[in-house]
């Protein structure tokens, strides 16, 4: 079901939690709201669910005006961060409880719960109460409770944040698979940009209650709308260096390069760590630098370098490149992947988006 949010604003007293947020989410789309704590992502989600009443703005679900409709009229399902399972009911009862208030027969309910539990791999746990289940199992019960209702829109509020790292990655994949199976419109809230990048059709980046950008992950990554998005998306974060533009060249303390079109107002250069190559000193170097910290990750490594005339810069190098702290290196930057930002943080130049190889014709 299509969801349209227009000029949504939510105030709590003097605090503006959501400020003029507008977006359209297409039927079957998986959109992730991402942003730091307190950016308004959960409040926006709760407004969509009907758990908060917007101060102004409108919400339409499937073309129907729903701004002030009660939660049950909206046909949404909400998965809470803490799962919010009914602690005294078995997993089966948790899943069937809401259905018992509908006109479904008990046979149909049992069948629906069984099928969903089977799909989520919790069938053998149906007679246990939440207290007897692990975090991952509770999470599945919470998902199951939403799925059985066959909602128009799934709303998931940081559903994986209480799980350990390994289980989180596993559940991430399962959620994506689940979305492909049931094809419901889904909004997923997270503060973890990696989750946002890996799971979504589009990601909506929020900060201070305002929507910064809504775009497919690869676009948000390659063509961030502003400095905030550029810094938030990607790990390790983008490097920002102060710059000046004069005589058709962009100058930073350590680097200088030809200014791209429209770059006159740029005051900051953005360079992603993976676009920095470290080599032996004085061979092909654009600048000299000293390694200050070396972080071993495995498949790749992270190197903090002190570049002459610039602050600390972070580079991401292939796993086989190893450095001792204090090592002298030359620094090469992929100038085709440079970002430039104006004084107000707006982007003035982005590199192109990487093209995807199309699916093979059948």
């Amino acid at each position, binding site marked *: 079901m299509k969801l349209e949010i227009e000029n949504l604003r939510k105030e709590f007293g003097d605090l503006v939690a959501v400020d003029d947020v507008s977006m359209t989410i297409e039927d079957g789309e998986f959109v992730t709201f991402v942003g730091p704590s307190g950016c308004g992502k959960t409040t926006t989600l709760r407004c969509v669910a009907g758990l908060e009443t917007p101060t102004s703005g409108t919400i339409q679900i499937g073309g129907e005006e729903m701004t002030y409709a009660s939660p049950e009229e909206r046909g949404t*399902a909400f998965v809470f961060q803490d799962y*919010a399972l*009914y602690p005294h009911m078995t997993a089966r009862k948790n899943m069937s409880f*809401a259905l018992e*208030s509908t006109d479904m027969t008990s046979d149909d309910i049992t069948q629906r719960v069984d099928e969903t539990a089977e799909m989520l791999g919790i069938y053998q746990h149906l007679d246990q109460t939440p207290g007897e289940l692990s975090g991952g199992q509770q999470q599945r019960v919470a998902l199951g*409770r939403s799925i059985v209702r066959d909602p128009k829109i799934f709303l998931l509020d940081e559903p994986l944040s209480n799980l350990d790292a390994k289980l989180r990655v596993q559940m991430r994949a399962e959620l994506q698979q689940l979305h492909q199976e049931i094809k419901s419109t889904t909004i997923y809230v997270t503060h973890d940009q990696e989750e946002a990048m890996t799971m979504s059709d589009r990601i909506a980046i929020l900060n201070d209650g305002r929507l910064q950008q809504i775009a497919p992950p690869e676009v948000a990554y390659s063509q961030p709308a502003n400095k905030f998005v550029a810094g938030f998306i990607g790990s390790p974060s983008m490097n920002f260096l102060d710059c000046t533009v004069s005589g058709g060249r962009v100058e930073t303390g350590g680097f200088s390069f030809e200014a791209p079109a429209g770059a006159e107002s740029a005051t900051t250069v953005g360079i992603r760590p993976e676009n920095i190559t470290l080599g032996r000193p004085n061979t092909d170097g654009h600048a000299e630098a000293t390694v200050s910290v070396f972080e071993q990750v495995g498949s790749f490594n992270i190197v903090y370098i002190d570049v002459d005339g610039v602050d600390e810069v972070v580079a991401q190098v292939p796993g086989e490149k190893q450095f001792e702290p204090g090592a002298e290196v030359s620094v090469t930057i992929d100038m085709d992947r440079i970002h430039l930002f104006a004084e107000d943080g707006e982007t003035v130049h982005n590199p192109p988006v990487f093209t995807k190889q199309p699916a093979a014709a059948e």
Partner: protein
Amino acid sequence: MSVVTRIRDVISGDSDVRTVTRVGTLATLTVATILVAIPLYWMVATSLKTSVQIGVFPPYLVPPTPTIDPFINALQTGPWVQWFLNTVVISGGSTILVLALATPAAYVLGRREFPARKPLYVLFIGILMIPAQILLIPMYTLFSRIGLINTRIGLIVAYSAFFLGFVVFLLHSFFTNLPDNVEDAAHIGGVPEWRTFLRVILPMAKPGIATAAIFVFVFTWNEFLFALTFLQTQELYTISVGLQQFQGLRGTVVYNQLFAMSTLATLPLLIGFALFSEQFIKGMAGLNLK
């Protein structure tokens, strides 16, 4: 945890300071327990002594020849069974009525936004500040006009009126502390509000409700002043009034029989508390009274 393992824990505590604190705590609790237990023990012990044995000085700590005669003799002096039943009906009725009224009220005051919510809650708290004794005469006058004097239902209504404010206060804090998300989950699922209240909220508030129930039951079971004033015919007496009557009935107080009846009167409460102590402790721990 058994006392032995508890003591072993105390002894094997890893630092001296901790051991001292633990021993101190244990000692204080032991003294407090003994202080509470002595009168109870004395009551039970005396009820098992003969009339001659209770007059002996120094007194027997343990009845030398325990006998249940005081129980049998005392039970023949009045309609004790009737008085017991009256007390059960009145205490049980008050508990049910108070909970039936206070639970939904506390829920709404604790979890719903509506105008005048705060003043209303303050009003309930305000009721707590009125000493029951002040209300004795006005209530007597009022109740006698509407024919509630000398009825069980009259006493039930009176007790319920006193406890309403207290139980609303108690449960209010309990409901306020329940997580919002669970209720929201039911709300989004389209579960009707009354069903959410009955099937989700009430079971989650069980420890709090059990605590309130125990409070009301114990207080009404022991209540004397209103029962004495409101109940006039012997058949309607509660056990506390019965015990007082029993003292007067015989001219002289027969202590072993009085204590035998006191033991019987206390027993249901002790058994009840033993059965529900876990719920009660959970409830007290869950209460965040502020």
